[in-house]
Structure formats: C-alpha cells, structure tokens
C-alpha cells in the first residue's frame, strides 16, 4: 500500500505561485471540480487570503492515476510562507518525502526560496524544481535554473517549466511527484508514531490534529497520548481532507490525515510532538520537537478599562487555536490592566491583534513590540525582560537576541543594503554572487533592529527586488540602556524602551520630536522629555490649546453643532489618558517610526 503514497509539500517564496499551483493540482486530480474551486482553496482563513500568505498548514489527499496505469495517493501538505512560522514549516517538511520547489521565472531565487530549500535538504527531501510563471513576457527560465543550481546546488536539467495560472505543466508535475519522490517508509505493525504538524480548535469537534503516521496505525477507540505533554485521549474519529473532511476507518504508516479525540486545547497538541498508542507506546518520538518560544512581545490593553474581561476571554479563545502565542496579565501605571503577549514574530502579532479587533470587536491599544532581553543581575540571577519598563536599575550584563539574516538582491542595489545593515548594527558574514547579477549577503543582526522598519526599508531601497529571511542565533552581550519618556515630569512606563547605548541620544531626540507631532494640543502645555536614568537627554513641548470655540450658533445650527461636538468626543474615545495627558494610539507605536 505504502508504495502508492507520495507525501509532498510545495515550497516557494511569497507570491511565486504556490497557492495557484496547489489549486491547479486539486483541479487536475478532480479533488475539486472547476466549479467548486474557489480560488486558492488551501488558504481558508479570510486574513490569510487578504494578506496573500498562508498562515496555517493544511493537508489534502489527491487521487491520481499515473501514466504507468497505477493509482496513487498524493498528500499535499501546505506550509506557511512566512519566517515567523519557520518551525511549523519544518514540521510540515518533516512529514514529507519530497517537495516541489517553485520559483518564479521572472523573479528568480529569493531569500525564502533559499531558506525553505535548505530546510527541505536538511530533512532529506527529494526536491523537484518547478520554474513557474513561464507565460510571463519577462520570464527567463534558463537564468532561473542557473540561479537554483548556483545557490542551492540541485540539478535543474529536468526542472519542470510551468505556469500554474495557465495550467501549463500540471501533468508533468504530477508525474514527477510519482516518479521522483520516494514512497514513505515505516511499518504498520510497529507501535504508533504519528507526527503532529498542525492542529486547530473547532467549536463543534474540539481540537483537530493533523498528523503524518510514520509507524503503526490509528483508529477510533484507541487511547493515544502526545508524548511531550503526556495527557491521554481516546480517538473518536480519524479522517482525511479531500479537501472536504472525510471519515476513514484508520490511518496507517505512511498516511496523512486528521485525528479527533475530545481534546479541548491546542496546548495539548503542540506542533512537532509525536502521538503514540498508550497501550503500546513507541520507544522514541519523532525527532525535532521543540517547545517554541515567542520572540516578540507587546502589551495589549483595552482602550476602555471595563473591556478587560472581554479581552481576557478573547485571548483565551484565540489561544485554544494557537499554542505559539502566550499572554499573561500585566499592569501599567499609564495604561491600567492589560496583558503582556508573546508572538513568534511581528506578522504573527499583527494577525492576532487584527483577529482580536475583528472577531471580538475589541478596541485595543498596543505598546511597541519588543524582543526579550536577557539580563544578569549583580547577584548572578538571570532575568528575561519582555517589558522594557521592567529593566532593573542595576545589572551585571545585558544580552539581546541576534539573528542570522540572509538577503538576496540584484547587484545594483547592494550598496544601500550594506549601509542599512551597517546602520542596524549588523556584522557581515558572507557575500556571494548567485548567477551573474544577484548577490547573497549574510549578516548577523540584533533582532530588535530588524523588527520594525527593516523589511520595508530593504524593499524600498531595492525597488522591491530584495528579499530576506532570518533565523535565531542566540543571545549576545550588548551595551543596552533603558530610555524613559516623561510627560509633564511623569515617566510613562508604556513608552519606555531598551536601546543600544550608542543610539540612545539619537533615539531620545527622534522620539520626543515624533511625540510632539502625535500628541494633540490639550488644555495645558505638555512637556515631553526623554531620559536615561535621571539624565534628561531630549525635550520638546506641545503648546496648550488656545482657541476652540464655535463662533455662531442659532436655530439652524444646533443639530450640526451638537454633532460636531460629539465627533470631537468620539475622537477622544480612542485616546488613552495618562495622568491628565490624552495620548492617541500612535503615541505608543511612535518608537517604531524612529530609525
């Protein structure tokens, strides 16, 4: 049976046509009729489609009759396309024997192409190169092949030329999957070993777990446990996605499908964990499990204090579906009661914030995102600082997270890119040509420096041509200080930030200037100061409001003027009162806008 199964992923840089190709494969194999095809079926969350990225991995079973006359089961395991989710990508790849490497024939190799291809090589996957979008006038398949060979070192002589949009090459791709990608190994008779590569919470069925079964067999009635967490559950249902949810009797070695087992929270089914049989457990779990830690933190506060409970409930609900994000209550002098939330990355943070506001109708105020700093106190105690205002006064050393960043760009843009990395405290590790006109540079950079505007600036410096990817390196010692912002003499904890000492003066000045533009005039003068410890390093002020009065108000003006005042009041609703000063949301994000 196993020899007729192929488990594969599609890996590609964003916008290189991964989702369109998936649609085409579904359509060609009849998994969905052309009519049933809503475009890009696999990206089912609204948010994913709006942002044009895949956040959650999915798995679809395709049935294909090959030219050799045999019937095959092809399991397409979709992978998220963003660096924030690279661990999830690695678990999806671990569930496969092969991968289609899709590269846009007009764009060529990009940073995520590399990152994902290396990841696939690490997992010993058979890589099938697909040169996509060959129908575009700007397509240059030969150059693209050359780049793949140069950068990744895989043979591209029989790379498939395709256009997912036009349906060119679809059959060739399916044939290559059958011919080149090995069938899964493993024994149905061995103890159950199933790798979790995705899980989510469904309001009706509880947690739905997507697994790749390596050894053994799982079916309804079995008692199972995820090996890392150890809780025991009884399987109520197993099935596959075709892409519709379909019940099957069992899932055996080599197969991909879902398990439902009355699980209440995704925290019990962490991605990368191995499910085994309680009565006949596997000796070893599948390799590569990591308890992933959030990299980016921010404070989330309701704009009106009495929505605190609603926010807590909403966070709780989202957490059911996303074990990679964490939250705990925190209190800010400036903002009151809220939560410190941790995310895999900035995109992950944006998505969660947007869902909280959209799905739970919450109005939120968020503090500037920060990385986690590691501080060794004078008594050798080690603290992890997720909130800049909590940096202690005295410490032995401060360390910050560094990332290995890979940037690919056409050679004409490389000058300004190197300057940017320099400005961001980067250390160059390599500089190589890929093909004749593309350059790959590797830098070690503090994560903090690339969090906010780095990517946008990289894009604008390179007219959109540069791409980047990064991976966590570890903590390194850095000379860090806490920069406090004072409004009318009071420290606003929610505006504090940790900065490198060499940049503190500059940042203090920039930040006060920016806040001056953001803070609206109030009934009194607002003094804005930046300070390191007790030392004031920058100062600005917002003049008091001088004149705000309706000149004329007679019989015909009353309703209009009332509405004018109500509008003014509505505008203030979105402001947060800190002491007597009213601050708009932008004020808390002002630090992001400072270079």
């Amino acid at each position, binding site marked *: 049976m196993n020899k007729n199964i192929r488990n594969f992923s599609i890996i590609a840089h964003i916008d290189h046509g991964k989702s369109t190709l998936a649609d085409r494969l579904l359509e060609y194999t009849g998994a969905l009729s052309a009519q049933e095809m809503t475009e890009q079926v696999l990206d089912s969350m609204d948010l994913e489609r709006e942002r044009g990225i895949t956040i959650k991995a999915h798995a679809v079973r395709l049935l294909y009759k090959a030219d050799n006359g045999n019937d095959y089961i092809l399991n397409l395991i979709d992978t998220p396309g963003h660096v924030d989710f690279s661990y999830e990508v690695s678990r999806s790849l671990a569930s496969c024997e092969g991968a289609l490497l899709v590269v846009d024939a007009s764009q060529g190799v990009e940073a995520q192409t590399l990152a994902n291809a290396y990841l696939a090589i690490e997992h010993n996957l058979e890589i099938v190169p697909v040169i996509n979008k060959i129908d575009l006038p700007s397509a240059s398949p030969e150059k693209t092949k050359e780049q793949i060979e140069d950068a990744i070192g895989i043979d591209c002589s029989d790379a498939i030329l395709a256009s997912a949009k036009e349906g060119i090459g679809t059959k060739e791709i399916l044939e290559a999957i059958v011919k080149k990608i090995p069938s899964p190994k493993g024994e149905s008779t061995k103890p159950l070993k199933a790798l979790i590569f995705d899980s989510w919470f469904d309001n009706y069925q509880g947690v739905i777990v997507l697994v790749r079964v390596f050894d053994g067999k799982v079916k309804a009635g079995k008692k199972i446990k995820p090996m890392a967490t150890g809780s025991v559950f009884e399987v109520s249902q197993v099935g596959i996605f075709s892409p519709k949810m379909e019940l099957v009797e069992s899932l055996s070695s080599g197969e991909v499908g879902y398990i439902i087992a009355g699980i209440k929270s995704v925290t019990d089914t962490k991605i990368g964990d191995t499910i085994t049989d309680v009565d006949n457990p596997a000796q070893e779990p599948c390799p590569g499990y990591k308890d992933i830690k959030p990299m980016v933190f921010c404070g989330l506060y309701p704009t009106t204090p009495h929505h605190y409970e609603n926010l807590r409930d909403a966070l709780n609900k989202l957490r059911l579906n996303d074990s990679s994000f964490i939250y705990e209550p925190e209190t800010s002098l400036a903002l009151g009661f809220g939560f410190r939330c941790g995310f895999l990355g900035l995109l992950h943070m944006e998505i969660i914030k947007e869902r909280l506001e959209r799905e739970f109708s919450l109005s939120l105020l968020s503090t500037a995102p920060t990385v986690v700093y590691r501080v060794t106190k004078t008594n050798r105690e080690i603290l992890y600082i997720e909130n800049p205002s909590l940096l202690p006064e005295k410490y032995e050393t401060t360390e910050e997270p560094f990332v290995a960043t890979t940037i690919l760009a056409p050679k004409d843009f490389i000058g300004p890119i190197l300057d940017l990395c320099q400005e961001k405290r980067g250390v160059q590790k390599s500089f190589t040509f890929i093909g004749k006109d593309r350059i790959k540079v590797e830098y070690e950079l503090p994560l903090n420096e690339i969090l906010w505007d780095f990517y946008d600036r990289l894009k604008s410096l390179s007219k959109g041509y540069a791409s980047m990817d990064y991976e966590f390196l570890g903590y390194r010692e850095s000379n860090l200080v806490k920069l406090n912002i004072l409004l009318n003499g009071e420290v606003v904890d929610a505006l504090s930030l940790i900065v490198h000492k060499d940049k503190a003066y500059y940042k203090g000045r920039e930040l006060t200037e920016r806040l001056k533009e953001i803070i609206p005039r109030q009934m009194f003068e607002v003094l804005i100061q930046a300070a390191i410890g007790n030392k004031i390093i920058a100062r600005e002020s917002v003049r008091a409001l001088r004149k*705000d*009065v*309706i*000149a*004329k*108000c007679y019989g015909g003006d009353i309703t209009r003027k009332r509405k*004018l*005042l109500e509008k*003014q009041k509505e505008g203030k609703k979105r402001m947060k009162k800190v002491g007597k000063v009213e601050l708009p949301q932008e004020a808390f994000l002002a630090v992001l806008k400072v270079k």
Partner: protein
Amino acid sequence: MPEFLYIHIPFCIRKCLYCDFFSVPYDESLAKAYIDTLCKELILKKDYAKSLKSIYIGGGTPSLLPDECFIQLFRCFRDNFHLSSSPEITVEANPGTVNESTITTLLSLSVNRLSIGIQSFHNDELRTLGRIHTSDNALQTVELTRRAGMGNFSIDLIYGIPGQTMDSWHQSISETIRLSPTHISTYELTLEEKTPLYELIQSDEINPPSPPFIKGGTWGFSNKIRMPDEELILEMYNHAIDFLTACGYEHYEVSNFTLPGFRCMHNLNYWDRGEYIGVGAGAHSFVSGLRSINSEDVNNYIEHLNNGTIPESESTKLTTLDTVKEFIFLGLRKTEGIIINKLPPFIPPLARWDRGGCYSLLNACSELVDDGYLEIENGNLRLTKKGLVISNTVIVKLFERLM
C-alpha cells in the same frame, strides 16, 4: 408651545465667499411666489403657537424684498397668529439693499429691530469676504435707518479676515461704536468647507473661483491670502470683549454684545433651548421636542406647499442624552451660563442619574471648576474667560464625564 417664529428668506444678490448657507440669486417673480408660499406654510402652522414673543426674518438677504412682500407677510402674521404685548420683531438687512422706503415700511409694520450685516469698515476686507457693499454703503444704511426712526439696530462684524490687522479691527469696532447701535455681534470668520474662500485658502491660487450667481466676477487678490494667526485672532476677540465692555456694552453670549435692555430675545431662546417655529425653505423648527428642517430647494418647497404639504427634509428625534447635551452646550454660550435650578428634572444637579450611568452635572464639572475653566456662582454654571476661548474642549470634557 413655541413663542418664537423664524422666517427664512433665501435670496441674495450674490453669495459671499465665506458663506456656506443655502441661498439663490434674487429674482423678483420668484421672490413673490416664495412669499405666497411662506403664507401658505404660516397658515398650516398657525396652531403651533398660542402667542408670539418674537418674529425674526433672516436670510439670505430679507432686505432685498420689495415693500409689498413685507406688507403681505405681516398681514399673514396678523391674520393667523396672536402677538404678545411687546413682541420683538427683527429683520436682517444688508447695506446696499436698503433704502428709506424699506425702513419706513418695516417701521409701519411694527418691525422694531434691524440687524445690519456690515462685517467691516474696510473695503479691502469687505472685498476679501466677497461682500457686495463698501464701507460708505454701510454708513449710509445706518444713517437712513436712524433718520427713518429705527433706533434699535444691531451691527454684525467679522474678525479673523485674511489681511485684517489689530489696527483695522480696532477701527471697525470704534466706527461701530460711533454709530451707537443697541447691539453688536462680532463673529470669528469660520472657514467652512466647500466655500470659495476655503478653496482659495487651501489652494495656491490668488484669484477666487467666480462665486455662484455672478458672471465673470473680477475681484482678484494681488497676493496669496492666508488666514490670520491663531494668536492674532484670539487677541482680536479679547480686544472686542474688553473694548466693547468698556464702552458700556454687555458681553452676554460668545459673540454678542448689547446695551442694557437690548438683548436679542429671539436668539436667547435658542440658547435657552426654547422651541421655535421655522418657516421657509431650509428653515429649522423645534416643536414638541422634535427638531426638523424644511427642504432647502426653493422650487421643491414651493411645489410641495402648492400641494398643501410641508416639505420636511429631515427631522431628529432627540434622545434624553441629546437633550442633556443641548442644554449644556447651548446654555454655556451665554455668559450668565446655565441656571442650574431651571434645568429639567432629568438633569439632576447633585444626585447620580442612573439611566445610562450619567453622573450629575455638578460632579461632572468639579475638576473643570477646580482647573478654572468653569465657575459656579449663585446657582449659575458658566465658562470662565479662560474656558470660553476653548469652550468646545471644555464642553466635550463635560460630555465625557456626564455620559
């Protein structure tokens, strides 16, 4: 029941550059048809009021109307409404549209108050505003008003005009005082969106687009015009308050000054949140707790009344909260402020108002009182001088605390 009647006359010779009111070019036959229609609406509304304390004929430019129109209109008032013993009857008049016969006619019809839209005594400022008259026209109008025997008149002035200086503003106020009107209104020029002046200020153009209903208007400016600086406007306002008060005029509302005994009863009714009947195209009414507006379109207005219906384009049912807001923001326009004891029982001065979690007025203002924006004296809640110039902000703060 309302005791105040407002009649709207939406005709002008041409539109001023800063004006965002609805008006149409004056046309005698249209005006006559319009007056006939006003009479129809008056008849339909005759039972709305038992007795009228005031009639106010505003515009537009009511003084453009031929004498017989006024005669017809006043006959209609007499036939359909009861007037109280000493009603205040005001007509708005613009310099350049008034002659001796107009004033004599109005006096004979028992009009006892004229509101004259002079705005400035500087021709360059009048030009910037797009007014049709000159400083001399204004003086002539006042002269003939007085000669005809209409001693009770008000003069409107505008400050904050592009190009205006403290000196020129002082001269306009001084000239006004020399004419000894019983009442003076000084309005800050408000730049309203969609007016030619607004477009001009926003753009880099020197010349205004030709204002509506004039062909080939030629009053270009030699330089780009700019609104005066906020501090200068504030200084002008404070100067008007100081100087007019020193000359014996009582500052009784944000923009209004009066000699003792000559407050405008009609306008006070608006700020006391009293009801009123509005008649005419675009006229607003406040009757039985409902605020409504007649259709602005003159032809549509005439057509509807020919068919016996009043064309109301909008009416607003006020919630209790809206009512509270109105009492506050209207009442605080008066320098005497809100007489707390005269507020309706659903705005309790002290107890907590529980429906919707509304706090009492006095609790809500305590911080604003402490900070010197509001004051409470002899049961009156009012803005201080410091609070007056930023009254919108103060009122919004009060709203926030109340609701």
